[in-house]
C-alpha cells in the first residue's frame, strides 16, 4: 500500500470490513483483490459489460466504475451474499433451472442487476427485463433464457410474499 492509502470501512453481505485502499483502486479491486470476493468479475473495467455489477446502498452499480474510497461507510451486496449457503436465492435457482448460463462468467453480474430490478418491480415485462439488462453482456446464450429466468424468479419471489 502506498503512502496515499486510505482506510475504508464497509459492510459487505452483512459483514463489516476495514481495509486500506489506494485512491486509484476501484470497488471491484477492493472486492476481488482486497477481500478475495471473486464472484464479481472483470470483463472490461470500463463499465461496458456488467460482469462486475453489485448492489451499493440498494442500487445496482458497476463496481469497476466506483472508486473504493467512495464506498466508505456504505452497505454493499455482492453475489456471494445472495444465498445463505443452504438455499439458493430464487434468481440463482431460476438461472440454473432455465439453463440461463453457459460459461457462467457474466452470471453474477446479471443476477445482481436482476435482483435490483426485482426488488423494485417484482413482475416486470419481458421488454422491461431486456432493457434493464441491456448493460450486461452475455456472449454465450443469446439472452432468451436469461430473460425467462428473471421472469420466473420474479414470480417465485412474488408468490413467496403472498
Amino acid at each position: 500500500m502506498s503512502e496515499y492509502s486510505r482506510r475504508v470501512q464497509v459492510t459487505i453481505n452483512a459483514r463489516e470490513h476495514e481495509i486500506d485502499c489506494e485512491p486509484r483502486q476501484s470497488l471491484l479491486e477492493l472486492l476481488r483483490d482486497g477481500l478475495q470476493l471473486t464472484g464479481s468479475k472483470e470483463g472490461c473495467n470500463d463499465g461496458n459489460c456488467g460482469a462486475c455489477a453489485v448492489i451499493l446502498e440498494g442500487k445496482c452499480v458497476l463496481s469497476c466504475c466506483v472508486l473504493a474510497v467512495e464506498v466508505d461507510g456504505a452497505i454493499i451486496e455482492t453475489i456471494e451474499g445472495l444465498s445463505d449457503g443452504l438455499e439458493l436465492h430464487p434468481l440463482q435457482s431460476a438461472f440454473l433451472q432455465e439453463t440461463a448460463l453457459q460459461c457462467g462468467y457474466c452470471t453474477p453480474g446479471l443476477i445482481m442487476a436482476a435482483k435490483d430490478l426485482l426488488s423494485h418491480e417484482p413482475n416486470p415485462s419481458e421488454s422491461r427485463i431486456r432493457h434493464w439488462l441491456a448493460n450486461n453482456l452475455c456472449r454465450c446464450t443469446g439472452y432468451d433464457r436469461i430473460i425467462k429466468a428473471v421472469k420466473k424468479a420474479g414470480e417465485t419471489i412474488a408468490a413467496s410474499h403472498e
Partner: protein
Amino acid sequence: MSEPNNRRPYRVLGTTPLREDGVEKVMGQARFADDVFLPRMLHAAVVRSPHAHAKIRKISTHKATAMPGVFAVLTGSDFPTLEPTILSHSDASTTDDLKDISENCMARDRVLYDGHVVAAVAALSRHVAQQAAEAIDVEYEILAPILDIEEALNEETPALHEDFTPGQFVLQTKKASANASGFEMNIGEDQDAFSTAEVVVEKRYRTRCVHQGYIEPHAVTVQWGSDGIMTVWTCTQGHFAIREQLSIVLQHPLSKIKVIPTEVGGGFGGKDLIYVEPAAALLAKKTGCPVKMVMSRAETLRGTGPSPGAVINVRLASDKKGTLLAADLELLYEAGAYPGGPVGSAGLAATSRYKISNQTIRGVEVLLNKPKMKQYRAPGGVPVNFAVESTIDILASKVGIDPLDFRLKNAMAEGDRMVTGLPCPKIGGRELLEAVRDHSHYRTPLSGPRQGRGMAYALWFGAGKTSSVSMTVHGDGSVLLNVGTPDLSGTRLTLSMQAAEVLGIDVAEVSARVLDTDSIAFSYKTVASRTTHSTGIAVYQAANNALREMARRAAVYWDIEESSVAITRGSFSDLGNPSRCLSFFELAKLLEKLGGPITVYGNASPGSNGCQLAAHLVDVEVEVDTGKINLLRYTAFQDAGNAIHPDYVSGQMQGGAAQGVGWALNEAYFYSEDGKLLNTSLLDYRMPTAVDLPDIETVILETPNPNHPFGVRGVGEVPIMPPAGAIANALYNAAGIRMTELPMSPGTVLEKIKENID
C-alpha cells in the same frame, strides 16, 4: 423450443437435468483464471506497440527497473530463438509455425500490428506493473503498414516477411506471392459449365475482422519452481495445447509443465493459443515468484486473434429449372501478421451443403499488419456462408423459384460427391429444409410494410480428434468421471449423461471433473464442436469397461465364469441362476471386498464428428430513415444427431445465432489509416445486448450420426453461420437492396437505400 419427437428409448439422454457445476457459477464461487491467488504472487503487465508496423530500434528498461515494487523486466531477447517448427502429429495443438507463435507472443526486431507485445514487467501490484510498463521506452522506426487484402496482393507491395511457412489450418496452402499463400480444389470435368449454363450469377462480397468477444479476458498465473517444474493456471479451451506450445516456445520439457485449467469465461475458438503465457512464465522464472497476467479488454481486442475479414467472389450457374451446375469461388481471407488463418475450413464449408457437379474453390490467405487471425466458431464459415447464401437467393430469383425450394432441389444428400471428392456422409439436409417449409413461421404472412423474410442454410464439418477419460466406480456406488477436455458450456453434464446412460444409473450419481495435464491422459482441445461427441465416445468406452470389470467382480462373488454374468441396464445377473441379481449400486457396495474400487479408462480418436446442419429463418423490418434493421422473428433449425441435453443444444443454437447476428449487423474492427485499432472497448466494439435480439426459437431435428454410439453430432459451431445470409436475404425482400458487405450497420444500409432511390 421444439424438441425432437420419435425419441429413441434412452433413459437419460434427451432429458434436461441440472449441471453440477452450475451451483458454483450462480453463487459466484466458480474459479476462473483471474480468481487464482497465490502467496508472494506478482502481477505482470506488457508494453504493446502503438504502431501497426515498425522496426524496434531500442528498448530502454532502466527507468522501469528502478521503480519501487518492480521485480523484473522482459523483452524479446529473453525468449529462446526458434527455427521454423511445424508440429506434424495428428493431434498437434496448432498447425502454425511455433516460431511465428513465439514472435507473436513477444516481438523481436519488428512489430507487426498495433498491440504487438514488445516487453513485459512483473511488479507487486497490477497498477505498479502498468506504471512500469509505461516507463519502458521503445524507439521505433515506423514502416508502412499493409492494411487491406488488395494492397497485400499488389505486386508492388513489399513482403511482410522475408520468408514464411504457409498456413495449413485444415488445408495446406502453398506460397502464391510475396504476402499470400493459397489452395485450389476442383471437382467436375465440364470446362464449359459456365459458358453453356442458362443462368449465371456473379457477385463480390466483403466482410470485416471481428472478435470472438468472450466476456472473460485472457488470464494466466505461472509458478516456476526451483525444481524446474512450471505450473500454469489458465482459462483455455485446451490445456494440453497450452502445455505443448509453452514447451516448444520456452524449450522446456513437457514433463516439467503442468497446466491446470480453470473455468473458462467463453472461448469460441479464441482461447487455445498462447499469448502472454510465455512472458508470465519467464517472469516467474526470473523472479522466483508466481506471476499473474490478466489482459484488459483493450488488450484482448488488440492483441489476441480475431476472425479475419474477407473478400469473396462467388460465381454460380444453374439451368433454367434451377439445378445448380457449377460453382467458382475465390476466398481471399486476411491472415494477419502470421500465416495460419481459417481460409481452409472456409473453403471446405463454402458449398458443401449443395450438390454441384463442377466446382472450383480457390482460397488465399493474405499477410498484413493486423493481429494474427484465429478461429472463431465455425472458423472462416460466416463470411463465405453470407456470400454463397446471398448469391443462392439471387440465382433462385433469376430462375424464378422460391429460395427454399431452390435449396431443397439442390440439397446435398448421402453419397453425393463433395468438393473434396469424397462422398457425403449421412446427413438430414432435406429433412431440415422441409422442417423450415412446414414450420408456422414460414407460413405466417408478414404483418407490415418494409418487412421481409429470408433464410440461409449451412453445413459445418467440425472435427473428431483424441479424447481420454478415466472413470472410478466407488464403493458407495457413486461414479467419478475425469476428462481432459475443458468445459465451456456444460459438457461435464452432457458427458456424465452419456456415462449414466451406459451404466444404467441416475446422472446425479456421476460427478465429472476436468483434470490438469498431469492427471489425465492427453486430450485434444475443446474446439470444433467435438467434446460431447468425441469425449462422449471415450466416456462410452470407459463406462462399458466399468460394466465389464463389475461383471468380473460379480463372477468372483458368485464363483461363476465371467461369461455367465449378464449385464442389463445397470444390473448384473447370473445366467445360470437368474434369481441371483445385483443392481449397480448393490454390486458397488461389494467392491471393497472384491478388490476395491474400479478405475477404468476410455480413449477415442474419431475421424470426424458428423456434419452439422443449420437453417435459419428471419423476419426483418427496415427503418428507412436510419437504415437500422430490426429483427422481428427468428427461428433456428438444426440437426443435432441426438440431442443429449435438448436445452443445451437449444442454448448453443441461440448463442451461435446471437453471435452471427452481431457479425451481420454491428461488429467490425475499425482501423485508422496508419493501422491503429480504433474501437478497443465494448462500447465501440458493439456486441448484441438483450434489447438487440428477439426471442430465438429453436427447432431440433435428429438424424443420427452413424459414427457415434448414441448418434451425436457436433452442435456448437454451425448456428453462427446462417444469420448474415438470412438477414441479407430478408433485407432484400423487405427493401429491395442487396447488401454485399458486413456488417450491415445502419449507416451502410442507409447508403444503399439512398443509392437505390437515386
